[in-house]
């Protein structure tokens, strides 16, 4: 594929203009101002200019910098990993489920551990849905169970076993100090321990969640902002079909 090198654009192609702001833990003076400029230079900004510098009190100072970024990326060389599935609408999903599974797909969801941000998971699961996109509860071929806020991973796992869940949906919104990583790893390990990991489709979502991150954490998919129920549903059923196919394959070899 032909290379396509990209640089930031201000008012002329490849001028590399970028805006930057940050705080330095030192009171404002000429030295500090120059330090800010040098930091910008280290970041690869030519003609870095500190256009605003202000003391914040208590030995802090704030800087706004404009400069011309030296770096460039080749757009053609960029690969983004995203959950692969054909996006179906509600009816499409329902049809595919009844056709391939011949039963309702069971989905258990929760906002785990200390996280109480249910609006996101509710947007995906509840009847009402989000921005006019109905939630999973409204899918005829799904049994969607939303456990809500601050659910301990243990309770989620227990419930998933009880309900014979095909899919587990987890929401993580609070990411401060990377608490979401601990929570998500904890849940994955629990499922491993219960020998459930292979049997369920494990999906995580949240405004700071990327598919890439989800994969790293051993999840089957990750969904970020602006996700709708049909995205999750479409992925889930496609993933289920793939797996059963694979398992069948294994089976044959087995015989």
């Amino acid at each position, binding site marked *: 594929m032909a290379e396509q090198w990209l640089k930031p654009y201000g008012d002329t192609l490849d001028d590399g203009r970028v805006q930057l*702001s*940050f*705080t330095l833990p030192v009171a404002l003076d000429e030295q500090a101002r120059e330090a800010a400029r040098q930091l910008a230079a280290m970041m690869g900004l030519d003609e870095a200019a500190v256009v605003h510098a202000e003391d*914040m*009190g*208590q030995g*802090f100072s*704030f800087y706004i910098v404009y400069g011309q970024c030296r770096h460039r990326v080749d757009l053609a060389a960029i690969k983004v990993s995203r959950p692969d599935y054909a996006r179906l609408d509600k009816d499409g999903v329902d049809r595919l489920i009844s056709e391939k599974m011949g039963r309702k797909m069971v989905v258990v969801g929760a906002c785990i*551990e*200390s*996280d*109480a941000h*249910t*609006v996101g998971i*509710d947007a995906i699961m509840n009847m009402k849905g989000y921005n006019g996109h109905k939630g999973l509860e409204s899918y005829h071929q799904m049994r969607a169970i939303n456990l*809500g*806020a*601050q659910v301990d991973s243990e309770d989620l796992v227990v419930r998933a076993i009880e309900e014979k869940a095909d899919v587990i949906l987890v929401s993580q919104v*609070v*990411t*401060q*100090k990377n*608490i979401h990583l601990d929570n998500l790893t904890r849940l994955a390990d629990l499922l491993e321990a219960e020998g459930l990991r292979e049997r369920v489709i494990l999906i995580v979502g949240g*405004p700071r969640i990327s598919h890439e991150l989800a994969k790293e954490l051993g999840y089957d998919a990750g969904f970020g902002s602006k996700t709708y129920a049909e995205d999750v549903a479409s992925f889930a059923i496609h993933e289920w079909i793939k797996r059963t196919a694979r398992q069948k394959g294994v089976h044959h070899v087995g015989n």
Partner: protein
Amino acid sequence: MTRLHLDQRQIDRARESARRIAGAVRAQMEPYTTTSVERATLRLLGVDGVDENGVPLPNRLVEHLQAEDLLAHGAAPVVIGAMLEQQSTVQQVAEAVAAGTLRLRRPANARLVRAACDEEAGKRCAQIAAQRAAREAAIARFGEARTPWLYVIVATGNIHEDVKQARAAAEQGADIIAVIRSTGQSLLDYVPYGATTEGFGGTYATQENFRLMRAALDETADRVGRYIRLTNYCSGLCMPEIAAMGAIERLDMMLNDSMYGIIFRDINLQRTFIDQFFSRMVNAFAGIIINTGEDNYLTTADACEAAHTVLASQLINEQFACLSGLTPEQMGLGHAFEIDPEMTNGFLWEVAQAQLVRQVFPAASLKYMPPTRHMTGNIFRGHLQDALFNVVSALTQQNIHLLGMMTEAIHTPLIQDRFLAVQNARYVFNTLRDLHAEVEFKRGGQIERRAQAVLDETGHLLARIEEIGLPAAIGQGVFADIARRPDGGRGLDGVLAKADDYFNPFPRLMLPGGH
């Protein structure tokens, strides 16, 4: 003052409904106490510290009293009784019980013990009264800040970083510092102990953290020449204990809602109603301004459709506050600027709501909350949403103004986010300082009609709630579209019926009427 033409009789009727609604709940809950109320009582009496496993002594004591079937009589008389017998302090009694060297039992001479309770409690109340006086003296010395007061949060998770950032914010112009609590503390049935440096989305509320921040702010106040108010969260399963801690450490404000825990933390309804009464009584006595949480409704419900639920809830919160002895000035009734920025004329509806609330509660210290749910990663647009929020606050003369952060959708505030937020508010408040006195709303215009419509709906809603009772209404999810059952949620196990001889010295000492 800019005024809308509203029907005062309609407002009075709504308030009357709310009074009866709150009264009914109060009557229902009167026969009960809770483990947290009793722990708070012990803290007020001077019990503090943790055992070798880090379990707070108030918890150890109350567990012991439960095990011994004594709690229904009230923790105070039993413990004070032991104190008299042992010729020791309440703290020594607590330590002995924790060490397993002392087993409590019903005190022999009830009359004598009650007198001792009153005396002990009286001393503690005097200390709290002294803190209150110290606050008033400081404010008198510096002069009260011009409203709207700039309210900022710190939430690094580390009390020492919090202190740095709070100091800087105060220097930049903040009037109020709120230390956001660590995610999930509200569900802990005990209060963590000591200075903490590890929290998620916030910093643990501990008495030591309160003390550290209080000292830092008093010290800063002298430098900047303004009294800096300190705020924390008097909510969750330990609501009454936090109130006790705050009263002792001279916090100035507490987020302290009568229903927030039920709705947003799925804490049991009875537990919450009992706890909120006691905690508000302590806050009232300590001269603390409470903040209610109606703003939260709009994070799950739509700000336009649910506008009347906010006003209805404020009226209910107001009446619960009266029952606990809070004065109007101590009522930081909450509301928020949460209408979709894409909505044509959304700004008009925000003005209508803010002005309506201002006129329904003329003496209250209204707390106005910034846009949150419609904030996005676009910090530049976010900074503008916050600016218009600031405009409405100044125009409708709100009192407690929580600063919006342009990074609301991204992370808890970085120091520069807060710095720029303070600049935003100071610029707006200064450049249109007298605007509120300059503009009038067109009679019968869209703004006035909107306000009247919300007031109508509020009246109807309260009438309905009065009919079925508040618990049933909450069961129907009238607030925040979230439904809770009276016997559901966390902490019901901490609710117990009082015995006939139940005794607690504090209501008599703290409530205006003495009960």
